[in-house]
């Protein structure tokens, strides 16, 4: 949990305050859309792929502090990685990169992982179709 006097770690708050890669990518190579209003978190993740490498990633998120921070972090983590490498990114890795998440917020990191997988799936399906 990092700092005792705060729900979130410094790193989470930093990404929450200044989220990286907010927005949409025009003509993305893959889109991941996960979550639903019932659970309170919705993430959209866009990727741009060039020669098997993720060259850009952006997100839009409706959700709590952890949801926004994990979205921001996962987009940072995938940039420059190959698609295969990106598929290896686990929710734990995202949470750890953020200096940890409170137990009840771990599901946000799961959502971030799912958003990424879903965007990559979308990309792989599309490239097959071509």
């Amino acid at each position, binding site marked *: 949990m990092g700092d005792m006097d705060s729900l979130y770690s410094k790193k989470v708050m930093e990404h929450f305050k200044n989220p990286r890669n907010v*927005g949409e990518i025009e003509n993305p190579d893959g889109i991941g859309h996960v979550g639903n209003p019932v659970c309170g978190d919705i993430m959209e993740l866009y990727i741009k792929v060039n020669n098997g490498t993720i060259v850009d990633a952006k997100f839009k998120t409706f959700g709590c502090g952890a949801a926004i921070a994990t979205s921001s972090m996962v987009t940072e983590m995938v940039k420059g990685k190959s698609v295969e490498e990106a598929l290896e990114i686990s929710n734990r890795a995202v949470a750890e990169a953020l200096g940890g998440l409170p137990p009840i917020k771990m599901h946000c990191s799961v959502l971030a992982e799912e958003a990424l997988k879903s965007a990559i799936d979308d990309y792989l399906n599309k490239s097959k179709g071509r």
Partner: protein
Amino acid sequence: MKRIYLDYAATTPTHPEVVKAMLPYFTDAFGNPSSLYSYGQESKGAIEKARVEVAKLIGARDEEIVFTSGGTGADNFAIKGVAFANENKGNHLITSSIEHYAVIEASKFLGKKGFKVTYLPVDEYGLVDPGDVKKAITNKTILISVMHANNEMGTIEPIAEIGKIASEEGIPFHVDAVQTVGHIPVDVNGLEVNLLSMSGHKLYGPKGVGALYIRKGTKLVPFMHGGDQERSRRAGTENVPGIVGFGKAAEIAQQEVDKEAEHLSYLRDKFIKGILRQIDHAHLNGHPSRRLPNNVNVSVDFVEGESMLLNLDLEGICTSTGSACSSSSLEPSHVLLAMGFSHEKAHGSLRLTLGKWTTDQEIERVLEVLPKIVANLRSMSPLLKSNI
């Protein structure tokens, strides 16, 4: 950065006068009220003085007040105490679907122990219909429990009407008045209640102390067994400083409640108007007029509550939300859902509750900051695109 505290419904600061009243009872007059020597009897006298003040605040007799560890303690005592004392008469309880967790969870516990519980619905404003109460009554009903005002969206329930029905049917009536005592006038006789819960830290008293009003003749099982403190209804060495503090808070409330309610209602309405004017697609939650003087609760479309709350916190502004993310259950507020809100709208709620020390300036500052925060969050919301 100066802090702007707008979460008075969650807890209030302890009034400096209250702290001053409490202090001697830690180190100087620390005697045990059960002790026979004069030094212990001084503590006993202090407790009885506090009891008189708390009783006065709600129009009760002092021997009808039992001190507890807080609002949750009072609610648990009332609900379980009446249920277990009347098992031979029946096993049916009536409550509402928007009660505080203390009442809901105590009722669910009883549900597991063989009691049947009716959770009454509410309308879009959060109002319980007294007609529904009447209809729900069976010959096995042993308790009706409806809160005086809801802690989330501030709606004030038709307690007097329900009290009349309960008293006509001869069924004990419990009211969770944790949010109203000290904030609007409360009179146990006018409301025809048998049991009424209060909590010190919601009216500028200390945390860890509360009280249950028990009308003379109401049967209930003691909450804690042990010594004969509190007429054997709640055993345990009394929290003397806490009780003294609660008494002082009750004394102050008697003097200030009317003026404070008037002032806060004015600030509240100004605040609500300001928010609705400055933020598109924002809605007031709860009843527009039958409402706690200090409660502002809005839903902001396309934006999640905790993310607003955290951004406000970064500006030193303390607020609350009914969003799922604020609870370990990950369920959004049961209150807003009971009012028929969509999950989306429930997740987007923000509660701002005012108090004794809230100023015009503080509200203006929020009105300046909040629209920017909302705009920023909307710019990253995937909901907006598809909905506007």
